[in-house]
């Protein structure tokens, strides 16, 4: 029982990360058909804002010393700000470009962010003790798991609820959902394109920051490539979930997390190294049988 619970928690916490990432990508895809490859680098940047720029091996902690009730909003705000800045400076000029062009532009932007961080902070991972109290283990239903894992799951569920009620209950959320489904029609009804897109970027950036906080506390390091892996999985989750479908992205994120964890558990030791090959094989299978994704966003038209 305990060990089954343990696996469930492992899957849920890894899935949470992917789900949050997928949500960040799906939000932006929904409103402007942009597959934002810079998302992973925004995640990394959110961790680095806690440190003072220096190429020394020892990190000079800067904002990371704030108490948690200031630190969390600070990081979320930085993520949102960076993401909105990327829309204003770069993506706004690509509104009418084809998806491939936007995708490469976002990749180029990510490249710029990554090398900028590299120049400021060097490639050596910096250690930060982020929210250290979260590293203690707790016991739940016979499973002894790190507090952070519980918090990750709780935070993700909280974020999902918060986001859902934001999207359901506020006018801005309504406009965003309408825009995600049919952007042109929303504009014809007077919905301001720039505001909605900036809102989507702000939310997506804040989600990136949330991932950054979780990853930062979990790994204790700031590392310029730390967002890349989550981003790739999130990207896949977004597609499997049905591009543009927020609920689909979340479900697929959890699904991917579960597949990865279960593979790690059931594969024999010799095959475990090939875990990713099995995971990606599963991805191809899902796509073959449901190319439009698990949940298709109605009215989502895409041509790549």
């Amino acid at each position: 029982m305990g060990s089954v619970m343990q696996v469930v928690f492992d899957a849920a916490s890894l899935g949470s990360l992917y789900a949050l990432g997928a949500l960040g990508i799906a939000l932006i895809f929904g409103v402007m058909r942009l597959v934002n490859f810079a998302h992973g680098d925004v995640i990394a940047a959110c961790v680095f804002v806690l440190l003072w720029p220096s190429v020394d091996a020892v990190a000079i902690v800067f904002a990371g010393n704030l108490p948690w009730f200031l630190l969390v909003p600070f990081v979320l705000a930085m993520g949102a700000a960076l993401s909105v800045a990327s829309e204003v400076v770069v993506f706004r000029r690509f509104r009418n470009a084809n998806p491939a062009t936007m995708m490469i532009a976002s990749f180029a932007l990510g490249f710029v962010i990554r090398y900028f961080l590299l120049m400021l902070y060097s490639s050596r991972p910096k250690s930060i003790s982020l929210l250290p109290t979260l590293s203690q283990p707790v016991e739940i239903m016979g499973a002894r798991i790190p507090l952070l894992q519980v918090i990750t799951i709780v935070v993700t569920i909280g974020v999902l609820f918060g986001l859902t009620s934001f999207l359901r209950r506020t006018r801005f959320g309504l406009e965003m959902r309408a825009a995600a489904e049919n952007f042109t029609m929303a504009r014809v009804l007077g919905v301001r394109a720039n505001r909605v897109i900036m809102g989507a970027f702000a939310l997506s950036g804040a989600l990136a920051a949330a991932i950054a906080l979780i990853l930062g506390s979990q790994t204790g390091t700031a590392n310029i490539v730390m967002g890349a892996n989550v981003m790739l999985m999130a990207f896949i989750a977004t597609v499997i979930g049905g591009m543009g479908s927020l609920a689909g992205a979340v479900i697929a994120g959890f699904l991917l997390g579960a597949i990865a964890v279960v593979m790690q558990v059931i594969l024999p030791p010799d095959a475990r190294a090939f875990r990713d090959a099995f995971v990606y094989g599963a991805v191809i299978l899902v796509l073959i049988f449901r190319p439009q994704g698990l949940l298709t966003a109605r009215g989502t038209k895409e041509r790549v």
Partner: protein
Amino acid sequence: MSLLSLSNLTIRYGRLTAVRNVAFTLAEGEILFITGPNGAGKSSLLRAIAGVTPPAGGRIDFADHDITGRAPEDIARLGVSMVPEGREVFGSLTIEENLTVGTGMHAGEHGWRGRAADALEEIYATFPILKERRHTQAGLLSGGQQQMLVIGRALMTNPRLIAIDEPSLGLAPNITDQVYERLIALRAHRKLTLLIVEQSSTRAMMVGGRMILMRGGEVLLDGDARAMGQSEAMQAAYFGYGDH
């Protein structure tokens, strides 16, 4: 005093010219049908007026504003509401949400909430079926219900001009009758100006009002719908014999 005026309007998609040098004016309170065969450029015209497709040349004025190439949301704020072809409801949103999207632009105004609620009641009064299914996802509605929904949705923005693309498309004739009946009633009640695109001129002749006949991106005829009736020029326009 004209509410809408088009001059020399040209619309292109890449190398294809969809609308060529079209000009007409529309007075406040008027009802205008634009008819013509497939590919005549009717929908393109509507999309240009709503700001969805910026024209390649020419000029559009609405209520003394030059709206050529302006963003759709700005044009909507001036009082143009377009109902596109194929209806395009927000399928995953409920009926009530669909209706509410368009009130957002008045949100800055004092007493918006109250007025939005009143407007909602008014729409429900016109289309009782919408009220009945107000929390249903719009994607689950039948074609006729969706058509009522998008007309209601357009009305919620409190427009001066409603431009509707093929309201009868895919609907059973008796449903189309219902839709038109409500439209005409609304026009009288709200002093709306109506711009309706239909492929067939039958409906225009039944309802009456002004009619413009387009073909190949150009205006062929402009006049009273009933008077145009069975004229030979109309036959020519539809079946492609005669000049051109």
